[in-house]
């Protein structure tokens, strides 16, 4: 072969070669973008990123489970006694004031997935109890007994008017 020696010549790795390699690398990286992006939620999925909830249909003391981004969300119309009860309960695992978990005291909105391993807790008088490992939440969605490590998540929601909320943000 004619030119084995040329292979090792030091100017092989010179400026032109480096620039070309860099430009090529940018192209390869750029080519990955559409493929990676295609695995993100598609337009029809992101358009369902919010849910409207009609509060008028939920009587006092009742909880409705609505679907938001494929997950259950508990919307509870709390009675005045429940609200009062919730003010002085101090939970130990993840202490949080009831006021920090609500926008209007009579409406509690929490994602209905146990913060332990994601099972859907069952409703009872005192709050919720998770069927999987027995975590207990109070009527503010705060964890009273483990193994759940934290309170039920409060999703982003806004009052559109007195009787309607929109859960989630537009993507």
């Amino acid at each position, binding site marked *: 072969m*004619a030119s084995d020696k040329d292979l090792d010549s030091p100017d092989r790795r010179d400026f032109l070669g480096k620039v070309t390699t860099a430009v090529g690398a940018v192209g390869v990286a750029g080519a990955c973008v*559409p493929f990676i*992006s*295609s695995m993100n939620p598609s337009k029809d999925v992101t358009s369902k990123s919010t849910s409207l909830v009609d509060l008028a249909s939920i009587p006092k003391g009742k909880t409705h489970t609505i679907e938001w981004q494929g997950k259950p969300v508990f919307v509870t119309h709390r009675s005045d006694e429940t609200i009062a009860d919730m003010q002085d309960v101090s939970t130990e695992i993840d202490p949080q004031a009831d006021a920090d978990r609500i926008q209007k005291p009579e409406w509690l909105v929490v994602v209905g997935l146990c913060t332990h391993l994601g099972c859907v807790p069952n409703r009872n008088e005192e709050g919720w109890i998770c069927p999987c490992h027995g975590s207990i939440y109070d009527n503010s969605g705060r964890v009273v007994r483990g193994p759940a490590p934290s309170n039920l998540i409060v999703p982003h929601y806004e009052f559109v008017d007195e009787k309607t909320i929109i859960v989630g943000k537009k993507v």
Partner: protein
Amino acid sequence: MIKKVFAWVDERFPLDEMIKHELTEYPVPRNLNYMWSFGFLAMFILIVQLVSGIFLAMHYKADVGMAFDSIQHIMREVNYGWLIRYLHSTGASAFFALIFIHIGRTLYYGSYRRPRELLWWTGLLLLLLLMATAFMGYLLPWGQMSFWGAQVITALFGVTPFIGESVVIWLRGDFVVGDATLTRFFALHYLFPFIICVAVAIHLVALHWVKSSNPSGITLHAKDNIPFHPYFTVKDLFGLGVFLIIFFGFVFFAPEFWIMPENNVPADPMVTPPHIVPEWYFLPFYAILRSIPDPLGGVVAMAMSILIFLAMPWLDRSNVPGGAKFRPGYRIMVYVWFVDLMVLGYVGAQAPEGIFVLLGRIATFVYFGLFLLLPFISKREERRSRVQGLPREAERLIREEQEELLRSEHYLRRENDEKELKNIRKRLEDES
């Protein structure tokens, strides 16, 4: 640090040796022109098809009720879905364009000749696999052309003697092309690329064993070989750049050029479009199929139109080395064959009426006639070359090669390597 990692790997895996053997010390004739880049380009587009195909499969639904809609879901709702789909649809056409040029180069320069027969046959196997994959992939969008194309081509198997009808139903899994057909075509369309990858690996092993042919068709003297890397890596990458400009030109500015309008209409088993045409890359073979009046004969002729290439190493009986370059008779044949193929392609796109029936038959006759004439032409041409002598360039290349072979014979005699010696003697005999 990097050196240490490589040293660690090299102790356990022949990485360094492989890089040397296949790249930095792999000898390639220095006189290769850009026609020799198309194999690399085909491999590149294979990767494009694999990647885009896998990402399409993440969103596609192989169900007659959902297939067409899922393509529109990809086109309109999946992020960059339109890009991935157009890459795949344009890529299919590009793949065939590249492979046809690659095969055309092999024929023109006589690269199928000894000792590259296995390379040639694995290449033809790859062509058949590619055709099967493309055909099955074309059903997946579930448009009118998809459906009727699959309907017609599966119906061809009905010419199988005695069991024709049951073969067709077995292929379809239904009485017509239906849900079962679509689902199995999807499964196989996903499977075949794996087989193609294996076949490509075999093709490459064979190539690196016999090394590249070259435009002169004569094995070059060792001093005229240069390492693949960096010379041909950079040359092929430049070729790739030019190809990508054309390819992305279509992807971004004329992607619909490769998609027939009829295929934007959902499949309807009750209505056949007025004019069914296969994709452009099947047109010449489709024309051959239609130009034989007997259905069984047509199918056999279509199969033969590709399988006959397997016989090229035997049909070409000339001992004049090289391809068309030093062989005027063969050169004319190859050109006639190229033109004939274009005529067949044109006829394949027309409705089988009037003049086109006749034209198709003539072109089919010429197509096969050329193959049958080849043994006689190549023998005659050889006799003429013996009388008139080869061009001076060819004489020089042959002399140089023989000198080198003689040198190695001399060397081997000392080493007593009988087997190698026999090989070299055979080559010297062949070429004198």
